[in-house]
């Protein structure tokens, strides 16, 4: 947005709430904040109606810090837990229909590129495993095949959390959940493999255990999407309610899953790597060293 839009009209200053003034004066607009600075600036998301201890909420909070230009970002979501927090962000959020995220984002991004040829506008899809791998599968895959320039972030809690705990395509085989009363009979969908098949230039699998890395990956994903093509982050963001994880154990659960089957993986194409090196030589080297 124009930085003029941020500023409060002097005549209205005394009527604006403290929260709003903080957002303008101490928000992350126009400057890249770091995870280590949390607590010293006004975050893009603060209040939310998510469950206590929700890993997804932490992940979303870190994602907002990673956005390179929140003042020029539009979020797209769909039904699911994530949108309850995303709709509370101080970034425009589109809450569309079921499974439509990557189609909406395709039209949105192209429309914005047409209207703002000189100003990059970042589009970021954040939706659940059900929203992206099941009902939104077609729009996700086609947006990748079309090389649409936006980031897709899957909040993978391996269950339909918001509707009360039904099995999803991303649920592990054997898990007993609603609509899979005898245990899920087939494997967790390989969305990372599908992203590779579609030649997505930046693909990451991660959890919330390393906050700095979450912000860093999001930043890279958004920058690469801006210039090169679609990017995909698949993040394990457990549902402590449906999987009965005690609230204080949420991060322990993420750590054990990370060790067991959800380890950090980062795939970056040569073109995307060269692009990152061209804009941030030091950080791109760090990327190289963490590649799985």
């Amino acid at each position, binding site marked *: 947005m124009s930085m003029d839009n941020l500023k409060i009209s002097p005549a209205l200053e005394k009527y604006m709430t403290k929260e709003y003034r903080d957002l303008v004066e101490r928000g992350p607009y126009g400057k890249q904040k770091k995870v280590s600075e949390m607590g010293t600036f006004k975050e893009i998301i603060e209040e939310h109606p998510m469950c206590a201890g929700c890993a997804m909420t932490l992940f979303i909070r870190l994602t907002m810090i990673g956005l390179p230009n929140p003042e020029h970002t*539009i979020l797209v979501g769909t039904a699911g837990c994530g949108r309850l927090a995303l709709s509370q962000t101080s970034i425009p959020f589109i809450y569309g229909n079921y499974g439509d995220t990557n189609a909406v984002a395709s039209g949105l991004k192209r429309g914005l590129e047409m209207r703002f040829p000189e100003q990059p506008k970042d589009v970021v899809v954040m939706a659940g495993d059900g929203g992206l791998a099941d009902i939104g599968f077609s729009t996700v895959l086609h947006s990748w095949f079309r090389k649409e320039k936006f980031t897709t972030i899957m909040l993978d809690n391996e269950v339909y959390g918001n509707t009360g705990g039904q099995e999803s395509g991303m649920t592990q085989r054997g898990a007993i959940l609603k609509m899979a009363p005898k245990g899920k009979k087939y494997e967790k969908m390989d969305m990372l493999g599908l992203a590779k098949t579609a030649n997505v230039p930046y693909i990451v699998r991660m959890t919330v255990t390393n906050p700095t890395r979450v912000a860093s990956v999001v930043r890279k994903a958004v920058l690469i999407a801006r210039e090169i093509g679609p990017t995909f982050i698949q993040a394990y963001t457990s549902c402590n309610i449906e999987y009965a994880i005690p609230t204080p154990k949420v991060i322990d659960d993420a750590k054990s899953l990370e060790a067991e089957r959800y380890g950090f993986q980062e795939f970056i194409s040569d073109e995307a790597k060269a692009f990152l090196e061209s804009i941030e030589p030091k950080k791109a080297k760090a990327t190289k060293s963490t590649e799985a």
Partner: protein
Amino acid sequence: MSEGAGVEVKSTSAGAGVVKDSETSEAAGQKVVTPEYMFFEAPRERAFITGSEAAKEAIRRANVDVAISYPITPQSETMQQVGALWAEGYVKEYYRGEEEIGVMSAIAGSSRAGARSLTATAGPGLMRGMEVVASWPGGRMPIVLLIMCRVINAPLSIQPDNAELAYLINTGNIVFHAENQQDFFDYTLKAFIISERPEVTLPVAVAVDGFFVTHARGYVMMPSKDIKLPPRDPYHEAVPVMDNENPPARLSRDAPIQKSNFISYHVHASWQQEVWAAVERSRKYIDMYMGGLVEIVNPDADTIVIASGSAVSQSREAVRQAEEDLGERIGLIKVRSLRPFPTKELREACKNAKRIIVPEFNCVGWLYRDVAAALYGHSKAEIIPGPRVFGGISLPTEMILQYIFPDKKFIF
């Protein structure tokens, strides 16, 4: 809108000395004119073209930013011709989507980005995309959707039949029903302007009966292709566009129906009331640009035929035959706008009518239901449901005459 000559020179970066290939420079050379000039003042020439070509020519002059296509008979020809317009530079962005849910969603995205957005579909495609189409009005998205009506029910058929409009008219979309190629050209152009008026800010669907109009030629009076409508102004609409050029308020453009509580019920209810109020506010522009929601022929007749779409053409011919061959003056009301529905116009026009015939190209009789509901308690006329044809069957004028003159025998 300005009362002036109507021609405004578009400021363009392409100077007079820039050499471009002929097709591109032709598109770049289009001048922006006022809607009034485009609709009423620009000199027009007659062309003999199909309905699909009429749509293409309207879109060429509509200053469209984003068009997204997906093939389905009998619509495919229109959106592939829009692709040709994109290749020639008349449309700024274009692609073939994955299927109709994807297309209707992507068009919603481009509209929210502030771009003038267009798509077209037919029958099963509309039904597939309906979840999304039904959500456009609540998102207050200016969009133009062209619908080439075809069979939606089994057995599978590609033939003309407009049963698909039965639910569409109850979604908050503005819906026009074009009778012929000329209507399809005019309504499409006017739909963009009506859709984007600040007090309307709603999608407009322009329906036409497949094949009868899309694949048949008719005379169309068209202004020159070197003029186009003014661009969309997304900062003068009912809701903010999602371009992040707004203050950093916690802005979810959709109504905040996030919870099941009394506030959310009221938000939803008042939001939908406002959508339908906006539908009603479009009347002013339909009157101004389209000559009203209805066209009335022989308003004082005892028997009146009320129809929309291709059924109007057949009814027009039946009315002519009744007068010339049988010496009876029969009334005809063409319904141009299905939403907003011309309730007050019908009540006024039908107050002395004794019999009303409602011919339709579908098996459910959605127009009959609307006519009966509008006239209940306001007319003593007997309202006759039919004649109806569907599945691709044509509507012979004799079939309409049989309903008008039940005591006579017509062969069809």
